[in-house]
């Protein structure tokens, strides 16, 4: 299976094939000397690659994976070819906009924009209070506020859609 793996803003192509219990991994088309041993069932994994071993921790789901290695966190997004095509179609339809989701649970204390308003990248959209801190949620890109999904005072969960932005028409 081929995956498009995004890490630190770079998208790498990784293919993984398992034959008779042996893994064959390519990275950017090149074969990678790679083995993967689960040390327990909690996410502790020992990797061997190019003569080195790495005690890493891996957690997540199909499309979002955290790899912790040497004290660092690699925050990774995965797509297979079908998902990549679907996402590309979606981006084409929304002109590059999309939902702004809450990255944490909290309460909307103040809404700074309204539907139809044009916003610049970095402009505050709303203020979310979580863990007693007020956090400004900024526009990830320039565009038009297509929809507002929340009201002031509303409690939101992590991952909940707050607003939908549409790219500004050229």
């Amino acid at each position, binding site marked *: 299976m081929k995956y498009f793996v995004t890490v630190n803003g770079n998208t790498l192509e990784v293919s993984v094939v398992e034959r008779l219990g042996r893994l064959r991994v390519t990275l950017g088309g090149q074969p990678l000397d790679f083995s993967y041993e689960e040390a327990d069932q909690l*996410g502790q994994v020992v990797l061997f690659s190019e003569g080195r071993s790495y005690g890493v*921790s891996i957690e997540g789901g199909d499309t979002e994976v955290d790899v912790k*290695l040497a004290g660092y966190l*690699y925050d990774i997004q995965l797509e297979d070819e079908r998902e990549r095509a679907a996402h590309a179609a979606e981006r084409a339809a929304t002109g590059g906009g999309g939902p702004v989701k809450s990255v944490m649970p909290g309460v909307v204390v103040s809404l700074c924009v309204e539907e139809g308003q044009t916003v610049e990248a970095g402009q505050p959209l709303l203020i979310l209070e*979580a863990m007693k801190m007020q956090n400004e949620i900024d526009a990830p890109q320039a565009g038009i506020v297509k929809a507002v999904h929340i009201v002031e005072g509303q409690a939101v969960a992590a991952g909940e859609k707050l607003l939908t932005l549409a790219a500004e028409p050229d």
Partner: protein
Amino acid sequence: MFTRILIANRGEIALRIIRTAREMGVECVSIYSRADQSSLHTRMAHVAVPLGDGPPATTYLDMDKVIAAAQETGAQAIHPGYGFLAENAEFARRVSAAGLAWIGPPPQAIEAMGDKITSRQAMERAGVPIVPGTEEPLEGPEEAAVIAERIGYPIALKASAGGGGKGIRVVERVADLDGAFRTASGEALGAFGDGRLYVEKYLGHARHIEIQVLFDSQGNGVHLGERECSIQRRHQKLVEECPSVVIDDDLRARMGEVALRAGSSVNYAGAGTVEFLFEDGDFYFLEMNTRLQVEHPVTEMVTGVDLVREQLRVAAGEPLGFTQADLKFNGHAIEVRINAEDPAHGFLPSTGRLSNLRLPSGPWVRLDSAMYRGLEVGTTYDPMLAKVIVWGPDRERAIARMERALEELNVGGVRTGAPAALAVLRSAGFRAGDFDTHYLENLDLHAPAEWEGLAAAAAAVFRHKRAHRRALATTSANRDPWLARSRREWSDHARRTARREMPDA
């Protein structure tokens, strides 16, 4: 000495206090909310008193409940830890009125230092240097603009009743003043029930350096040197060390003397911290924290003094029994706070269930932690889960040791600030000792490019193995449609209960 004390707190600090109390032969009463019923501070106490199911306001912050718990269990004293009721003078008074000892400074000292504005005034009178700014609460953003014009931008808006980085905003130019005033005031109102703000000159490349002091109730006081706390994000400390590279013996003695003067001027007793901003060899009083601080362990590792033990001794009326000359500073200590937060996304809070813990240990590594496998990390309480503290004979070796310890650490289920701390420890500026309170803001916190490919390959294999396991499960379940359904139902049930039924798994 007391035979039993109540600890009006939770998390790592409750454990920290329990540990010293146990070593002193003092029994501990813990209080706990329903959410904390399996927490370590509940399990490690001699007596644990439930305060019901509710937010902090009806549990850890409910003075009546806390004092009643102490009286019902025969505790003779209350240790407030930090946060919650630790700097609440009314609580301190009510504890004393209930015939219990208060393990903290006198209520008057808390009050004098608790209000940023009156404390600035008091310190000015005591001859302690302070940062230029207002002392009265601001009427509104307009007044702030006038003062800012006088003292010059950047300025800092701060909550009069504040602390812990809440209700603080730095303003670089007049155009941002309105918005900053509104969010800071709102945050202050939410956090402290008091939205008043004051303004201060913002020092552009200041370091945050604080002095630990210790007074007994006979009027003797010593300082235990400084802590360097300039590595902060969102005005919250992340990495602390003792000593500071910019403080030599002479400066330590001078700052210590000023800190003791600050404490004496309010008749301080117990452990406290005088915070200073330090820039170009000058230091300015920032505030005094009238409690034990999160970062107290670095002082302990360098001086060998158990600060919680000293707090209990002072509260029990014992004299310090040692003088400034008896204190020796040995080696270098560093602390890293392990918060549930995401450094890659502006240090926003991270929540989840701790599923996978690998904790650092070994030579000269101290872990003050409330973590256990299964702990639910939510947003009700402070996101600080643990602190890693190391000691080394010098700063270079302490840094190397902390890097090693953070590489060993793994907290599964939430993201933590540990990778950011590692980036700090490995940065040239930090290693050279050349940093200020803005250092972290400007640091690249991306994981190194070196291992991107490996991490990407690992993630792809992780997904591959998940899919493989799912496929296997589906294949065997599909043999019989009835079985498939029952298995799916059982599977949900199993997810909830299987570990309960398999204590040996």
